[in-house]
């Protein structure tokens, strides 16, 4: 109902649209939606939704007041202008992206919630803005973002650069925080869907049914807001809102055991129309491995080639704005049928993992292992670690070893923690030798918390957020210098610059660390017992030990005392 009224509203007000077009020729709000489906070698399937809303306004300019919203969600627009946000990235992820089985994701995210924001450089009280912003976002997304405070916020100096317009480099205006424990569920999905112009009523968003999305191996939803250029000359700015949702469906838990996927099996829906407000609405299916690995039906003549994450991929394109896509049944249900076993996947060039070594509740060691699987190229990576204060890092024990040799980082930014105020931040630029495993270790001591600082389930352990590895990875396309099949010779000698490397961010798994925990099950007994023991035992022993004893004369019996009284009067020697 809301949608039809919205459409009705727009269609009955052509003058409004006309006006806006007159003011900014060639620039209106725009909405695009797309879904990429990539069959994975493991038999699983990866579906990635992207919804892009372009907002043609620049409220950061002086005196610009924005009160009219068309496609862009008003709740977010108000937040942006109120807190002078330059860029905002927020992701909610349930699960861990398995790089070694699934390759690189289109948009990486760590387990739990991640939020990073660049504020405009006119903001004077960044921390205050940040605090309010997290509370507001917490309300918008129905998430526990209000648990973000100074003890888990850091200001990375190099790892998180703005992705949009402008080259702000002063990291005083950047705030980064993760909540590794955040659990993502339908309550976070609903507000996220409400930000879409068509809601979940039409277009690709009809596929977003929570009972299927959360019956998967991996679920991640994100919102990215950044300023972009309106046109090629970049004369005017626009705001881009990108809502992404990535999900990986598991072959085994989907039942049946047949290696066969369809839109209906994945989402329990088929596609029947595009979102009427969308200028483009497309479904891409990665068919690079077709037909050795699987076959796709219905086949489409539309193909598109692109270099994605350093690899040349071919996609079948289904344009939902064209009626013939839906065929006679007036519904699109893509079907992928595997043929035999999937071949070996190309190993991802960059991979990282992390674990806690040692045993006992006093000390431990964090190991971060970064793999460079490139056969002959070395490349640098930026490693960022944010460790809560209750793990007291011994930074002098920091070692970086590659191929059992010391590997000195060329850049180290370390900000020690302050108890109960801020976490450790460690950023390092490390050169990874080709085909190597680099191990970063640092020892820590587990702090004993005050008894009110423990969580309600202290024996579960405490989380340490993922460390972030950012790198420019040499691409596969450039790797293959012998690749001349469908390229003219003159173009293939020197690798094309933009294809020679690509930016990747890899998140490691979060850590669950047990801290020394008192027995909370009977604090009352314990307190009573210890107090009694201390008071009675210690008090009286102390008394015994410090007192000097003197043997006093035993007092005489009454009869003797009377006798003595008489003797004293008589002047005779006294009895003893």
């Amino acid at each position, binding site marked *: 109902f809301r949608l039809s009224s919205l459409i009705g509203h727009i269609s009955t007000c052509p003058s409004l649209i006309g006006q806006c077009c007159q003011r900014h020729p060639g620039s209106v709000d725009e909405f695009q939606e797309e879904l990429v489906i990539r069959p994975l070698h493991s038999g699983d399937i990866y579906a990635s939704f992207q919804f892009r809303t372009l907002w043609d306004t620049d409220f950061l300019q002086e005196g610009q007041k924005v009160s009219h919203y068309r496609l862009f969600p008003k709740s977010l627009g108000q937040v942006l202008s109120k807190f002078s946000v330059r860029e905002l990235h927020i992701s909610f992820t349930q699960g*861990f992206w398995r790089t070694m089985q699934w390759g690189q994701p289109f948009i990486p995210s760590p387990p739990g919630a991640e939020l990073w924001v660049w504020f405009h450089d006119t903001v004077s009280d960044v921390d205050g803005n940040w605090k309010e912003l997290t509370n507001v976002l917490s309300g918008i997304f129905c998430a526990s973002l209000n648990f973000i405070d100074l003890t888990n916020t850091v200001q990375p100096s190099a790892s998180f650069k703005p992705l949009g317009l402008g080259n702000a480099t002063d990291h005083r205006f950047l705030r980064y925080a993760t909540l590794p424990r955040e659990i993502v569920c339908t309550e976070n999905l609903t507000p996220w869907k409400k930000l879409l112009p068509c809601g979940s009523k039409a277009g690709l968003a009809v596929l977003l049914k929570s009972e299927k999305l959360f019956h998967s191996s991996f679920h991640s939803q994100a919102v990215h807001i950044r300023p972009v250029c309106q046109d090629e000359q970049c004369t005017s700015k626009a705001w881009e809102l990108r809502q992404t949702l990535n999900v990986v469906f598991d072959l085994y*838990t989907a039942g049946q055991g047949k290696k066969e996927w369809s839109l209906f099996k994945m989402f329990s829906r088929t596609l029947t129309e595009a979102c009427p407000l969308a200028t483009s609405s497309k479904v891409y299916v990665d068919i690079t491995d077709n037909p050795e690995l699987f076959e796709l039906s219905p086949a489409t003549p539309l193909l598109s080639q692109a270099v994605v994450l350093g690899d040349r991929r071919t996609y079948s394109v289904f344009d939902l704005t064209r009626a013939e896509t839906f065929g006679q049944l007036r519904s699109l249900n893509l079907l992928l049928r595997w043929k035999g076993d999937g071949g070996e996947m190309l190993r991802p060039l960059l991979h990282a993992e992390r674990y806690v070594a040692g*045993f006992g509740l006093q000390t431990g060691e964090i190991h971060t292992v970064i793999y460079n699987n490139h056969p002959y190229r070395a490349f640098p990576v930026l490693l960022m670690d944010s460790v809560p204060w209750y793990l007291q890092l011994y930074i002098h024990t920091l070692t970086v070893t590659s191929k059992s040799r010391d590997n000195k980082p060329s850049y180290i930014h370390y900000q020690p923690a302050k108890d109960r105020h801020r976490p450790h931040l460690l950023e390092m630029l490390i050169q990874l030798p080709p085909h190597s495993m680099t191990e970063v270790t640092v020892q820590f001591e587990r702090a004993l918390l005050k008894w009110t600082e423990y969580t309600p389930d202290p024996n579960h352990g405490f989380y340490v957020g993922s460390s972030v590895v950012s790198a420019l990875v040499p691409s596969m396309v450039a790797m293959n210098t012998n690749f001349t099949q469908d390229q003219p010779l003159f173009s293939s000698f020197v690798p094309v610059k933009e294809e020679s490397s690509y930016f990747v961010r890899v998140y490691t*798994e979060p850590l*669950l660390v047990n801290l020394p925990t008192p027995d909370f099950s009977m604090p009352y007994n314990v307190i009573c017992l210890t107090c009694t023991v201390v008071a009675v035992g210690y008090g009286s022993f102390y*008394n015994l030990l410090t007192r000097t004893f003197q043997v006093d004369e035993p007092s005489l019996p009454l009869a003797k005392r009377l006798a003595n009284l008489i003797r004293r009067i008589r002047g005779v020697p006294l009895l003893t």
Partner: protein
Amino acid sequence: MGLLSDPSRRKVLTGLLTRLNTPICIVCYLAGIVWFMGLAFEPFTLRTYMSENAMGSTMVEERFSSGERALSLAKEFDAHKRKAGGMPVEWLVKAMQSRGLEVFTQSFSRKLPFPDENKERYMVRGTNVYGILRAPRAPRTEALVITAPCSPGNTNNQAVALLLALAQYFRNQIYWAKDIIFLVNEHDLIGTQAWLEGYHHTNITEYISGSLRGRAGSIQAALSLELSSDVITSLDLVLEGLNGQLPNLDLANLFYAFCQKLGVLCTIQGKLQRNDWDTAEGYTHAAQTMMLMVLKQACGRSWGDHGLFLRYHIEAASVRGINSFRHYKTDATTIGRLLEGMVRKLNNLLERLHQSYFFYLLPSLSRFVSIGYYMPAFGLLAVILLLRALDLWVHLGAPALAAVDGVTEAEQPSSPGVLTVLTPVVISHLTGVALYLLPVHLQEMAVEHFPVSETEAVVLTAIAIYTAGLALPHNTQRLLSGEGTEQGWKVLKLTALLYLAVLLGCTALINFSLGFILAVTLVPITASITPALYALVMVLLSPAFTILYCVFIYQELIEAPVSVSEGWMLFLSVISQGILDHALYGSLVYPLLALFIYPCWLMFWNILFWN
């Protein structure tokens, strides 16, 4: 405390304690023993109950049904094991991969300090294969482990097969919140130790092992499965781990609850529970079960693969299938369901198992004795040492007190110098160090000079040093101060008594059983020692003989009594196993006995030859 600060009353109290010292000590000793034996009496014990909320109220449904498939898999595994002449690594990797697990291998090697004659191994080289079931939408922070050893011969084929069948079934379920690691380890405990050290990147026992590639966060609990027949009559739960550590009692409760639910006969220490506690047989049965647990715990070794997990704060237990001649049989599907139920409940855990007891004794699976109940038994024994020490202290101090009074008496014999006490202490401890170090280090020399194998060499060297310790010139004080004075040995005895009390107290806190057994044998002899005592009595109650008695009692309790010569052979193997356990897994019983208990006992031995 007012009692003590009043000098006259203090005098009365000390007078009472010194006058009645011997009767009080005897009463304490007897009371300690009786208390301990009373622990097995059912009305004195508590019924076990599930403390953990997450495992209690949430019922799970068991649906595992591929027991038959597991058995055919066991045959296949057996064939491949024979063909490979050991662990069929490739087959296992393929089997796990085809079930949708992430599979990794770890190779390890370890040269034992001397050949292990029980298991016939010296240079150990092996591979662990493990597959990780990644829980959907979980961030790899928590894991559970199910392990089955790949044993030589015909044993444990069904365990590995059931593990694979469970993996296949578990992989298709959506409800997992923790990753599940399926581990098939080679060379039983050595493989487990190598894997655990690899997983936690520690190196405490000098293993040479390959690094692990796949991890799944912090391990919350582990189950070890041993199964060698297609059908079983009962399942035995093994809890005793390294250094006498026990898993949380809730793990035992969980096992018991599922055995009840599925109607599986369950035993502990191989003994079925009896219902007739009020008869003599019923009581004896419970006492035997508890004594077995005490003996097993005291020896400080890991009685199954689970025992090594406990060091890493991972609650673990072994489940062992037993096939005897009863005709009530349980099939593989039911065992699979039992494990499924247990793993699902462990999967539901929000926190590590911590609600229930970590220190307990089990007279049966449904009854337990907590630390609060068994500690008084030890306390009654330990207090004897303190009473004797107090007695000695009063006797030693009495003449000095008299001197303070100003009464001019004959000059008291001057109190013995520090050297007279220190020398025997140092000599005893040096003997202890020799007992700890030499057996392993001198084995080559011993093998060269005597016609014995390495293992025998080590054990016989240990016994030789132990005996040589008795023959050392202990009466050094004669060289220092001429004749041994009465005061001299009393001071030495006082020191030794307090030392022993501290030693036993600390041991009992960590491993009650070991502390209690040592106290039972050491306390009477050390409390009553004077230079006039017979040396033979002293030797018969020495630590080595304690071990020998324990061997015989243990054999008696497991209903496999042995002759004296067999018992002696067992005693020798127990010593070699003790030394091996220390070298391979870091068990602390051997160093404790060699470096502390034996020297302490030698100090008392010293008193015997004072004059």
